[in-house]
């Protein structure tokens, strides 16, 4: 009898365990979902509120702001024609008919009012979150009438900062090459092509501008035909932006070109050739301490520093075709980064450090912009079926790219979100040919 009891007890212990095990077995493993698709934040910029003289300035601010937001790649700017709300609606938050904004898909709403002020004009901005119906950001900016667009850029920077916690890059400058009457000159302008001014007026060929990290200096390649050099002698020149002076910096051997500043601003990497075989050298910004970095039988050119200053990307045809390579800043451990395509050039290292943008000729013999991940070597395509696209440069926050493109005829500058989904033309004062963009650093305020 006792034996049977023990048996029963044992059985009683076993049965629930089995049941529990079966239960656990029924519980499915948690689904793992990753790889989200990023969608731009739908944002509406309400028609500007202004009267009298300020209307034109308000329109300019509106145009610049929507241009900035679109090309940032972060926002989906809802077209004005779709708006349902009363165009005379106030700045809010009181009096805003929220459903009319959510009905057109807006998650954020920007209100803009332009009035007169002592300095010229005052632009008041308000960012509202449509769903919680609250004001997220308020900004009043004063400026001269001529700086209307810059006020828009400043607010666009604040918007980017508000959402991403990273600085925006709309208040930056670019340098580029403008071609006119057989000469090529270096120009600078705001990032959107406005407020353009020449840096060189030497009547020769000035190309490949490179910004110093402080933004006060440009180094570029310059050559001009002379008796001594019938085909010109490419030298590196430096332009000081504060006083408008420019002068030769280094002109050893028979070719000096393609400068790139180290991120700490103390050294310049460039291509130099003295025996017909271009190699990469580094020189101090004061012109001392010339050091050779590459030693290959092929052509090594177009150096580009990594943002941490530890590595340099460059182009080499040591394996037969021009490809993007990366080496340590002392020239050691060169590693090939691109393995697709057979004509890859003009590397530009993203300020985020993970990617290198470059120009590549694809199998249809068209030049397009690509981006390669330095670690995974994965290549993304930015442009396709849109003419010839060359010479990419990154915005200092790494969220935008600029390059030259001939998709509308003459070569002009185009700005694109880093994923290439939004591409817009930089409007310039005339229809000259614009190439070789170089995006300047953040401007200090």
């Amino acid at each position, binding site marked *: 009898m006792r*034996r049977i009891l*023990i*048996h029963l007890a*044992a059985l009683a*212990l*076993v049965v629930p*365990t*089995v049941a529990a*095990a079966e239960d*656990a*077995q*029924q*519980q*499915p*493993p*948690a*689904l*793992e*979902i*990753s*790889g*989200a*698709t*990023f*969608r*731009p*934040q739908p944002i509406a910029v309400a028609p500007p509120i202004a009267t009298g003289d300020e209307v034109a300035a308000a329109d300019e601010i509106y145009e610049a702001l929507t241009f900035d937001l679109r090309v940032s*790649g*972060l*926002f989906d700017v809802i077209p004005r024609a779709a708006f349902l709300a009363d165009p005379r609606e106030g700045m809010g938050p009181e009096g805003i008919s929220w459903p009319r904004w959510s009905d057109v898909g807006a*998650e954020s709403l920007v209100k803009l009012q332009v009035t007169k002020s002592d300095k010229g004009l005052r632009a008041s901005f308000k960012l509202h979150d449509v769903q919680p119906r609250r004001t997220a950001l308020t900004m009043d900016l004063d400026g001269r009438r001529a700086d209307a667009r810059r006020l828009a850029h400043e607010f666009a920077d604040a918007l980017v900062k508000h*959402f*991403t*916690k*990273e600085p925006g890059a709309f208040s930056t400058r670019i340098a580029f090459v403008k071609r006119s009457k057989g000469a090529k000159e270096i120009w600078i302008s705001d990032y959107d092509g406005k407020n353009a001014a020449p840096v060189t007026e030497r009547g020769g060929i000035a190309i490949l501008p490179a910004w110093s990290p402080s933004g006060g200096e440009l180094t570029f390649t310059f050559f001009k035909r002379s008796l001594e050099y019938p085909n010109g002698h490419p030298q590196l020149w430096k332009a000081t932006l504060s006083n408008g002076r420019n002068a030769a910096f280094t002109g050893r051997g028979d070719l000096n070109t393609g400068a790139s500043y180290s991120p700490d601003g103390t050294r310049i990497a460039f291509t130099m050739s003295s025996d017909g075989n271009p190699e990469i050298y580094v020189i101090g910004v004061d012109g001392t301490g010339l050091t050779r970095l590459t030693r290959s039988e092929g052509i090594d050119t177009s150096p580009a520093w990594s943002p941490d200053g530890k590595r340099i990307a460059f182009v080499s045809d040591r*394996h*037969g*075709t021009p490809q993007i390579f990366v080496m340590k800043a002392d020239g050691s451990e060169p590693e090939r980064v691109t*393995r*697709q*395509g*057979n004509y890859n050039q003009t590397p530009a290292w993203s300020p985020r450090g993970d990617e290198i943008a470059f120009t590549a000729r*694809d*199998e*249809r*013999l*068209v030049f*397009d912009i*690509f981006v390669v991940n330095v670690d995974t070597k994965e*290549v*993304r*395509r930015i442009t*396709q*079926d*849109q*003419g*010839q696209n060359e010479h990419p440069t990154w915005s200092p926050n790494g969220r935008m790219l600029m390059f030259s493109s*001939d*998709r509308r*005829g003459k070569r002009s500058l185009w700005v694109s979100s880093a994923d290439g989904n939004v591409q817009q033309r930089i409007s310039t004062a005339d229809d000259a040919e614009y190439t070789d963009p170089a995006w300047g650093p953040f401007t200090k305020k």
Partner: protein
Amino acid sequence: MQKAGNALAPSGLVPRQERFRWTWAVSVCLHVAVFAGMLFGSSGSCAREGEPPQTPIAARLVRLGTPRDERLLPRLPNQTPTPPVAKDAPVVQAGEKVAQEAPVPQPSPPKPTETTVPSPVAAAAPEPKQQAKAPADAPKNESKQKLDDIMKRFSTGTRQGPADPLPGQLDGDPMGDAEEAAEGERYLALVQKRIQSNYTVPSTIPDEERIRLRAVVTIRVEPNGMISEFKITKPSGNESFDAALESAVRRASPLPPPPDHLRASLKALPINFRI
């Protein structure tokens, strides 16, 4: 016991009791063994027996197409706005270019097969040809057509060539969107795919948060496939991310009715989200 033993001893039942002790010991051992088996092996060998849910693998339909030569630069699949110049077989055109280009320099990478590049292209050529239009040009006109096409592209300045075939597998599905296939628990994989396809988050989420944002969500799937409950069991800490998860799940509903063996487990299906 002692007393009973003494009582039984004279009756000749002692050896029988000895035998009982042995059985008792075996019984205990067996139970211990069964216990141990339940405790340690429940998730292992036992689980494979019945009808347990397998790990879901996101299965995608393999697209019908020609695998792209891995030495070539990638092409954007969604940008093929080139219907105007589709006079001759467009794919052969592209293949020709590849074949001409590939041998020229290409020094280092292992040359897989020069001949395989054009042949599958040529094999796949009739398909788009029929779809596009092209009333089967005579072969003798082909080279002239090609030349015309090249000239046209160069003269327009855009140089956009004819549409490329999308990369895929030769035995793929025309509606497929993946380049490789995988297997797994079909229904859960379908749930995963449906939510995944609606899984969009705002690009304004800061980069440093993108790496660490995690959320656990529990959903309830009704026998008719409706997702009737959505609960964030472990929020991420980012409001807009959590909101995006909810809309991803809501938009995935209704799902197809789940199979019987999964109904019980779908009363509370945990989902781990990360970006």
